[in-house]
């Protein structure tokens, strides 16, 4: 190391990289450099072009035989090309984003990036467009072939533009999912598997949920827009058949509003994209930050509730919410179809289970650890605050969990009431006390879990979730399998699990409840008993939480030598 020039220690002037200026984003350019090298890219592009070219060439060959019109034969490769594009963007790209992000974290390079003076949003944009840049180029390589098919196939821009818009937003959504997974999950292999698993689930498992009243989930995929565009991209005869079939199906309704599939997909995905961006910016600003702020978390919870209700309620009157309706329509079984009572109970229970699951997940995101609370006290004292500000990460998440439980209870009640009081079950009325039961359940199981997490920490909460949530289900199932005599014992044991509570609630407190005789007595008793236990437990945990926070405040006060603060 030879002396070269006089050391100049004046720091560099402030410089901001605009988040929107992707082309000049250093992180984007860094990945362009490393992932677009001719040596690595050549084979990939060649393969992509070969596959896309083969599909189009086959179509052109078919045209020469004269079996199909030029328009129809040109439309032939559109769907296979869309599948290829989907594989490139959704599968390869998402895997690359999640894996790449975790690799940066794993190797420690991320610390450099954390320190560079770019805004968190600019960093997120750099990774969002930089990490999968090769996949974007592969996608671009297929575009000329697709453009030829669309042009020759006389596909209107009104068809392909919404389709590609949904393609683009879905891509962003999945990549952001990959980025969040890569940022949170520390193991590279797990991050890869989880993000690919999520995308796979979106196209396989999640659409099934829409059959059980959770219609909102299908708008996280390109499927609705694709279905809407299908008549316009299929060969003309087939397209006409599909279009006729689609006219029989309901349009998208959100409460009393009518939306096109594209607009509603953009609306749904847009909310999630925004939430993921907020999460990532928070994480980039400080690694220890919670994924969501408290207000945003509460807003997100309510937003999903509104989406679930907005999608589901309009489907009740025509009967399309009930899973047996579609089955009946497809099989042309019974012209006087009626939904079964069990279906209504199951729909209510599934809604409650989803609400409970969301409450658990979002509460976990906003619950501070003990270290975080101490840090909060340190900062509060430094800034002269009498207590930790509510909305900071160090503030207690309990009140927000409670607010979510209340909102969830109301949402669940509205949904259940709409189903049970619909024209399908004449004369049924859901009393207001059901709202009390639902809210008590969400309080006992959801808010109680949050208090446990905040007072005892993650390991204890997770162990409790296994011992109380999973083990009773297994033990109870064993009892039930032994024989009918053991059903009541099985029911009581299964009732310990919070996961069974929404189903027990539907079977116990709904006026239409129609349980088999063997469990008709045990289920309501077990539900009310365990609900009381959970509610009392949650109350005790809330008291304990208050005491522990006070202890932490006092301990941190002693450590910092601060004066005791009134009301601390």
């Amino acid at each position, binding site marked *: *190391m*030879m*002396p*070269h*020039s*006089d*050391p*100049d*220690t*004046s*720091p*560099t*002037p*402030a*410089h*901001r*990289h605009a988040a929107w200026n992707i082309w000049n984003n*250093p*992180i984007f*350019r*860094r990945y362009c*450099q*490393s*992932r677009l090298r001719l040596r690595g890219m050549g084979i990939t592009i060649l393969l992509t072009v070969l596959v896309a070219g083969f599909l189009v060439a086959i179509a052109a060959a078919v045209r020469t035989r004269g079996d199909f019109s030029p328009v129809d034969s040109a439309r032939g490769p559109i769907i296979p090309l869309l599948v290829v594009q989907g594989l490139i963007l959704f599968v390869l790209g998402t895997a690359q984003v999640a894996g790449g992000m975790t690799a940066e974290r794993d*190797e*420690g*390079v991320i*610390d*450099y*990036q*954390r*320190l*560079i*003076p*770019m805004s968190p949003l600019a960093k997120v944009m750099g990774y969002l467009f930089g990490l999968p840049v090769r996949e974007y180029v592969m996608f671009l390589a297929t575009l000329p072939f697709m453009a030829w098919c669309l042009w020759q196939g006389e596909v209107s821009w009104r068809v392909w533009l919404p389709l590609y818009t949904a393609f683009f937003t879905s891509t962003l959504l999945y990549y952001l999912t990959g980025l969040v997974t890569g940022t949170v999950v520390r193991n590279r292999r797990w991050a890869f598997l989880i993000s690919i698993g999520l995308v796979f689930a979106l196209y396989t498992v999640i659409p099934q949920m829409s059959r059980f009243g959770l219609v909102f989930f299908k708008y996280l995929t390109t499927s609705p827009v694709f279905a809407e565009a299908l008549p316009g991209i299929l060969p003309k005869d087939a397209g006409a058949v599909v279009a006729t079939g689609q006219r029989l199906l309901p349009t998208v309704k959100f409460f009393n509003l009518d939306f096109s599939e594209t607009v509603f997909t953009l609306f749904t995905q847009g909310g999630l994209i925004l939430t993921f961006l907020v999460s990532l910016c928070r994480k980039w*600003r*400080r*690694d*220890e930050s919670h994924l969501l702020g408290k207000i945003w978390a509460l807003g997100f919870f309510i937003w999903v509730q509104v989406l679930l209700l907005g999608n589901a309620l309009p489907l009740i009157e025509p009967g399309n919410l009930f899973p047996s309706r579609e089955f009946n329509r497809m099989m042309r079984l019974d012209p006087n179809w009626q939904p079964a009572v069990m279906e209504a109970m199951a729909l209510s229970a599934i809604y409650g289970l989803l609400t409970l699951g969301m409450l658990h997940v979002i509460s976990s995101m906003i619950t501070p650890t*003990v*270290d975080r609370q*101490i*840090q909060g006290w*340190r*900062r509060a004292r*430094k800034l002269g605050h009498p207590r930790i500000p509510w909305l900071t990460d160090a503030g207690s998440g309990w009140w927000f969990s409670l607010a979510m439980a209340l909102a969830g209870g109301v949402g669940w009640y509205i949904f259940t009431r709409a189903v049970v009081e619909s024209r399908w079950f004449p004369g049924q009325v859901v009393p207001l006390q059901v709202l009390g039961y639902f809210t008590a359940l969400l309080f006992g199981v959801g808010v109680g879990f949050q208090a446990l997490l905040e007072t005892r*920490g993650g390991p204890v909460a997770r162990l409790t979730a296994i011992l109380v949530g999973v083990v009773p289900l297994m033990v109870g199932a064993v009892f039930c399998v032994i024989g009918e005599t053991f059903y009541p014992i099985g029911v009581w044991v299964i009732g310990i699990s919070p996961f069974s509570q929404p189903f027990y609630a539907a079977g116990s407190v709904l006026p239409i409840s129609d349980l088999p005789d063997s469990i008709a007595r045990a289920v309501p008793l077990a539900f009310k008993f365990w609900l009381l236990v959970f509610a009392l437990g949650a109350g005790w945990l809330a008291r304990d939480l208050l005491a522990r926070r006070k202890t932490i405040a006092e301990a*941190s006060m002693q*450590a*910092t030598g601060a004066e005791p603060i009134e009301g601390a």
Partner: protein
Amino acid sequence: MTAPPPLPESPPAAIEVRGLRVDYGNFTAVDDFSLSVPAGEVFGLVGPNGAGKTSTFRVLTTLMEPTYGEVILDGVDVLENMEAARRIIGYMPDLAPVPGDLKVWEFLDFHAAAYGLGNRAQRRQRVNECLEEVALNDQRDSWCKELSRGQTQRVVLAKTLLHRPRVLILDEPASGLDPLARRDLRTALRRLAAGGATVFVSSHILSELAEMCSSLCVMNRGRLLAAGTAEQVRQQLGNTNRTLTATLLDRESEAAAWLTAQPGVHDLRVSGSQVVFGFTGSDEDQAGLVTRLIGQGLLLRTFEEKRSSFEDILVEVAENNRRS
């Protein structure tokens, strides 16, 4: 009436740490750590593995929020003004990684662009300057993954220097460097300090830091044990033991008998014309002992002193802590 001229103020410390504590659950990695480092100094932090050096550095570099304490870098409150602090910090982590899919110049150019160091030509010039600073110009077009450990360390050091940080925080920068490269690193750090930058450097090898730094501190099990110049650190650690050897022309037994009666003398033995003994006391005490020995009329041919090495001291401190 004109306002009186402001009183001259002492320059603020470039690095000011007050009551720092870092907890990981029930484990306290750094405990009540306070420090003040003046600008333009090469300051060393030494401690065995697990002493809390990396946790301290991660707090200083805004990568971690402490449980308690305050950190001010060049007048900027690191915990309250993270963005401003990041602009003046140059951080080189322990076992500094480099992305294997980039060439050396690409890696440096990416950081130069991220710090907004001008257009492509200006960045290229700055990258070349920094590469020359770490004597790695000939590796400019090499792949990062092909570099040796020492070369990787130097590339990361070059990256750290790119934006001319006012506070350099280097976690074990000399590990993996050969003796020549270490000497050059020493020279480079001193030159940076002479230019006004403050260098905070850690190592678990005390002698290495003693050569490199104008002052240093010793940390063990999260606590600051001593701080100051190398000699002050030695004294603060209570290590005033030394082995003295007096070579006499004759009358060794008489000298041994006299020395045994002197305060601070222990473990005395006679070996030929040499009297070898341990001595515990200050430098002044030792000077008095030698003067008195000569005053006894003994013919002293040579007098030799051997002190414990820094490594020995650190091992002793670590052992004592472990036992306690």
